């Protein structure tokens, strides 16, 4: 039935098959979705899994968990060294790849290709704008915005470790505020450098993956899995080992990218609980974080069993409402007018500094470029199969132009507003209270990144309430990511089938929690970051090829 040419296989198709909701260029292939799947029964559980992809990814993940737990003391430093090596050696490559993704997206946006509709010319959207946007935002950044919203701008503003972006002057040196002109310049650089990490570049990475997946599944009729993107390059060979390798890499990238975020989330939530409820030393060990991961994985399990519409969508909308409440609160009780006027200044600074910041060579700000930018890019890339597939799944019926506007431009503006609200308030506290501010204590004096958000909130009114909202948000974002991540990994490891038995999603949701917990035990946040960098880097090469396949695929669509 996979062959849509009814003349070639009349006995299978029987009658002429209808066009997929208006004109689209379906790829004719003899590959049947699910043909390589095996359906073993383990006890009462029936499975429906892609043979090499599920088996290899499953075994490697189980082995990884066991080995890391057995050699906790050696794995941590090894991973830490690897992170340093990869980001300092390949920083130029990652930064360059990021620029290419942005250019590809902007190019498609303004070209006639933007008229193409995902799902065929007459397809109608499956979700409303609000539901769609909530889901893509919760999947795309979620926990990260909570963790880095205060941390990153404050860090660049006053870092005593020489990590300032573009090697500019910083606003606070040895606990003393610089002159107003330097402070203002340092503030603008800090905001531009932060928005750079949360703006066009990450969303362009997601947009490339999501658009490619959506195009090849909804318009070309190929299975919803990463290998389908490469059909224009490899042709039918994509159903063989090349495809297996791509899919397995996507599974690892997703799993470790997700584990990084889950690790950040768990550390932040447990630190926040300790801070708000005055429990001393809760974060001296990772024990409480691991307990928290277990509880949250349990919640994710419930969400998984409620499905896409009853689980992820509802959670994403809750997130959206809570996040807006928190942000509006910070803007209103913080320095409101300052923030409003700063927003436009920050956007201006972002666009004027973006060329300097995204220049891959000939810079001497190693701490920023390698330690932050290269890490972020690898992290976003390792997240991209997950976010991309998730966005693809909920984006049917949107035109390409609408899609890129909503996945690239609007999230960039929302991220900039968020960073202005949280980072701007934090820097304002630094400027007004200098060493007396809690943010100074957690970000500059000693580096306790997971408490930076709560430090900023503690200086605003109703700190107890807002901090609790902050903790709840981290946890709900965590549950959402864990749920949607298992949905995605399950689809990839089931060869693009989305109605595989739910027990498989349960397996992945549990192992995501286990990987996050294991990495925390075997080296903490450094290990998490190393894992996502080392899976993100090879996947960057895959994504560059995907850009070519995407453009080729779009060109062949009727316009």
């Amino acid at each position, binding site marked *: 039935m996979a062959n849509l040419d009814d003349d070639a296989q009349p006995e299978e198709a*029987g*009658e002429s*098959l209808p066009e997929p*909701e208006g004109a689209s260029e379906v790829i004719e292939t003899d590959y049947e*979705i*699910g043909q390589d799947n095996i359906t073993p029964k383990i006890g*009462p559980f029936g499975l429906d899994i892609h043979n090499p992809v599920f088996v290899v990814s499953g075994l490697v993940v189980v082995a990884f968990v066991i080995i890391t737990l057995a050699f906790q003391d050696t794995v941590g430093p090894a991973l830490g060294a690897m992170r340093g090596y990869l980001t300092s050696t390949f920083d130029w490559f990652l930064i360059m790849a990021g620029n290419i993704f942005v250019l590809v997206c902007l190019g498609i946006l303004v070209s006639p290709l933007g008229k193409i509709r995902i799902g065929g010319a007459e397809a109608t959207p499956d979700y409303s704008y609000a539901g769609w946007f909530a889901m893509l935002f919760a999947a795309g950044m979620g926990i990260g915005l909570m963790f880095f919203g205060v941390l990153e701008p404050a860090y660049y503003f006053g870092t005593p470790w020489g990590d300032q972006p573009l090697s500019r002057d910083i606003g606070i040196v040895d606990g003393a505020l610089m002159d107003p002109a330097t402070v203002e310049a340092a503030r603008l650089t800090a905001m531009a450098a932060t928005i750079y990490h949360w703006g066009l570049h990450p969303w362009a990475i997601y947009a490339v993956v999501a658009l490619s997946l959506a195009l090849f599944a909804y318009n070309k009729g190929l299975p919803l899995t990463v290998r389908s993107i490469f059909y224009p390059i490899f042709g039918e060979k994509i159903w063989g080992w090349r495809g297996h390798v791509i899919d397995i890499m996507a599974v690892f990238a997703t799993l470790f990218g997700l584990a990084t975020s889950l690790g950040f989330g768990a550390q932040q939530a447990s630190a926040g609980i300790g801070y708000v409820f005055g429990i001393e030393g809760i974060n001296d060990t990772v024990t409480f974080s691991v307990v928290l991961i277990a509880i949250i994985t349990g919640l994710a399990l419930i969400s998984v069993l409620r499905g896409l519409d*009853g689980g992820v969508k509802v959670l994403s909308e809750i997130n959206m409402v809570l996040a807006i409440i928190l942000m509006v609160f910070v803007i209103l009780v913080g320095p409101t007018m300052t923030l409003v006027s700063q927003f436009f200044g920050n956007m201006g600074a972002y666009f004027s500094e973006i060329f300097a910041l995204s220049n891959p060579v000939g810079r001497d700000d190693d701490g920023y470029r390698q330690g932050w930018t290269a890490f972020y890019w690898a992290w976003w890339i390792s997240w991209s199969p997950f976010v991309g597939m998730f966005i693809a799944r909920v984006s049917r019926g949107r035109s390409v132009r609408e899609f890129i506007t909503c996945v690239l431009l609007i999230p960039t503006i929302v991220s900039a507003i968020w960073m202005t609200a949280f980072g701007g308030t934090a820097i304002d506290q630094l400027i007004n209270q200098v060493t007396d501010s809690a943010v100074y204590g957690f970000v500059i004096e000693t580096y306790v990144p997971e408490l930076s958000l709560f430090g900023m909130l503690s200086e605003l009114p109703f700190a107890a309430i807002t901090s609790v909202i902050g903790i709840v948000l981290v946890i709900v974002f965590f549950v959402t990511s864990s749920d949607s991540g298992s949905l995605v990994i399950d689809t990839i490891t089931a060869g*693009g089938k989305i*109605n595989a038995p739910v027990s498989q999603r349960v397996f992945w949701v549990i192992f995501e929690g286990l990987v996050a917990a294991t990495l925390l035990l075997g080296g903490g946040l450094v290990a998490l970051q190393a894992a996502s960098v080392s899976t993100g880097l090879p996947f960057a090469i895959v994504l560059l090829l995907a850009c070519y396949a995407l453009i080729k695929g779009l060109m062949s669509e009727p316009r």
Partner: protein
Amino acid sequence: MYRKVIFPVDMAHIERLTKALQTATDLARHYQAELCFVGVTSTVPGPVGHTPAEYEARLNQFAQEHATNGLKTSAKACVSHDPAIDTDKTLLQAIRDLGGDLVIMQTHAPNVLDYIWAGHGDTIAAHSEASVFLVR
């Protein structure tokens, strides 16, 4: 006694439905009832169809093939965002919307897992207002 018999069909596993399908066609003929095949699909390409429209066409064709000896058949394709979870809910809604008064469906022999996760047939039988005939 029955006017509309609903037969939920898993188009990917038609070969496993023989006994239930025979029961449904026989009963529908006996009561001169309409036999309506209901299938659940997703928007994502699957083994049965690349698009919901293609799936619907196959389901319609399947229904027509069974319209023999004066049996009146129809088909209803339901689109679910997440059929792995929402199939039961979608089927129950379709049974209500179509006004079915008898549901005949294939189910598996009960096993230990049914204590935790009921099969589709069990859930439909427990929640549908129509009469439900489960064929083991």
